[in-house]
């Protein structure tokens, strides 16, 4: 068994070499790991490697064949790159792109709109501040963009997923 696995952007080839009960010999990019691995709770693995104890939690990601994985202190985004996933990936457009509509997943209130129609906005700039679930959140732009339309005003009450700002 062998799989290509993407972790935080870089990919590794993972192979199962041998298995004996909980004990696995697995190679990650040709480096061998002897681990004692057991699923203790749903999505939680106890892994012993060189007698170090790791409690690893796997949460399914938003997309199929992806995980968010927590080890002791770190959190990783992981994707399984099988043939299908690779095919889909090649077809897919740039992941870093913005959606053309900015909206809040939660109902809330517009604290402040920081742009107006026709503005040119730089990557990383905040365009709107929304208060939802009693907290204020800043919505930023990922790439340099132009504002096509602003659909709300300061103080407006908004529904979840209501379009707020249309960008280029």
């Amino acid at each position, binding site marked *: *068994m*062998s*799989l290509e*696995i993407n*972790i*935080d952007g870089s990919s*590794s080839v*993972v192979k*199962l070499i041998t298995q004996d009960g909980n004990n*696995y010999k*697995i190679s*990650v990019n040709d*480096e061998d*790991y002897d*681990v004692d*691995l057991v*699923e203790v*709770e*749903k*999505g*939680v*693995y106890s*892994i012993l*490697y060189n007698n*170090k104890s*790791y*409690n*690893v*939690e*796997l*949460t399914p990601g938003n997309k199929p*064949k992806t*995980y968010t*994985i*927590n*080890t*002791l*202190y*770190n*959190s*990783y985004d*992981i994707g*399984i790159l*099988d*043939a*299908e996933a690779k095919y889909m990936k090649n077809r897919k457009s740039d992941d870093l792109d913005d959606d053309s509509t900015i909206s809040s*997943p*939660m*109902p809330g209130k517009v*604290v402040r709109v920081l742009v107006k129609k026709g503005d040119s906005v730089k990557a990383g700039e905040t365009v709107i501040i929304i208060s*939802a*679930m*009693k*907290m*204020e*959140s*800043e919505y*930023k732009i990922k790439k340099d963009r132009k504002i096509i339309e602003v659909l709300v005003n300061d103080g407006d009450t908004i529904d*979840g997923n209501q379009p707020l700002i249309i960008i280029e």
Partner: protein
Amino acid sequence: MIKKVLIANRGEIAIRIMRTCREMGILSVAVYSDADRKSMHVRYADEAYHIGPSPSNESYLVIENIIDAAKKSGADAIHPGYGFLSENAEFSDRCKEEGIKFIGPSSESISKMGDKITARRTMMAANVPVVPGTTDPLTSEEDALKVIKKVGLPVMLKASSGGGGKGMRLVTKEEDILPSLRAAKSESMASFGDDAVYVEKFISSPHHIEFQVLADSHGNVIHLFERECSVQRRHQKVIEETPSPLMTPKVRNEMGEVAVAATKAANYQGAGTIEFIMDDNLNYYFLEMNTRLQVEHPITERVVGIDLVKEQIRIADGQKLKYKQEDLSQNGHAIECRIYAEDPDNNFMPSPGTILHITEPLGLGVRHDGYVYEGYEIPIYYDPLISKLIVWGIDRDEAIQRMKRALFAYKIMGVKTGIKFLEKIMNTPDFVEGKYNTQFIEKNKDILMEENKCDGDCKAIATIAAFIDYQNRLKKVKDRIHPDDVNNNWKAFGRKRNITRL
């Protein structure tokens, strides 16, 4: 004696209040919106009443519905918790009219302290120090220059009708006074249709320190010492501790006396909090009074040893305070961390969702006040607070070590939380040394937003876990298919079977 209490709230605070009710042999009544049918407070209560749709302005904020539930259940008192209707004068009044005890202050006290200008004037009359400045609008540019000279730079110009930072200007240099005044006035006019502006001394990088008070209906008032609440993000408290690392016994006594005087001036009854700002020279000024139980009340409970909700209920019941000021002292050190469903890597955006798995930190010196459980979906309608983690230590060092231990063991899957961010605060030198003010998070943002280092193997370990989990899931899907069915289902499962052959 009160026999049945309706808790007009939800989440961790509803459960926290119900726990005390149970200890006192009082029945608890939950109210819930559509989104909260499965919420723990409904499950924990003795009784539960539906009060409307999910948005809080159609349920938890509808006085009529709450009163209706109280009457149906025969509750003889209502505890409002914090937020929602807890500082609503009309609600306090309405309860009184209906003959239901409101576990909180009178509408008069709420109104008086709710209006910032009235509160400021009340406090000045009671010789409680307030931030130097004026409470009346500046009458002219000459008046402004005179007043600001008296108050001393830097000052903050504030719109009388202001809010949300609008019509506000910080003035640090004399030559900026008039231009700033004009800008503030015009902004205020544009925003609120009123150009009245007043002046307050600007306290840079202040500390936020508050005093817990208890006042009964017989005129007795005590304070339960301070809480240090300077670790804030966007004016929201993140971590609180008591005693304050800044405080001296002398200032503590003095401020305690001031807090008691302030409470008396507000004609207050119940549990309340006097908030102060303090500069580095321990000069302190009344900021506002919170006329309810605070989120961070547990740290006071832990070091003083008093169940504040129990005292609230006793006071509402007309009983005299059980404790005198001289009975009280602070024992050890307590810290609270607020755990929100939020994404620290994405500007602390709320992160509602379903709790897939939770491991709560336990053991010596740890109190955990929460309400979520595995499979529970945090609704999008309310405050994303998941729980409060409170630790106690014999001294501040032990409390910090214990909080680190507790945060390390606290695991939640399914929603993002600020747990790792809080752990970093516990390791930040300014916090460890107790040398911080409300600028703490801003000042230390490089440390706080730094990525966690990995010793090298954890990436491989994570990869291996994903590998095995994926294989096991594939295997399960295969096993679920009855041998006879494989051919029929070839289309659906063929692709997955191919993968295992790679």
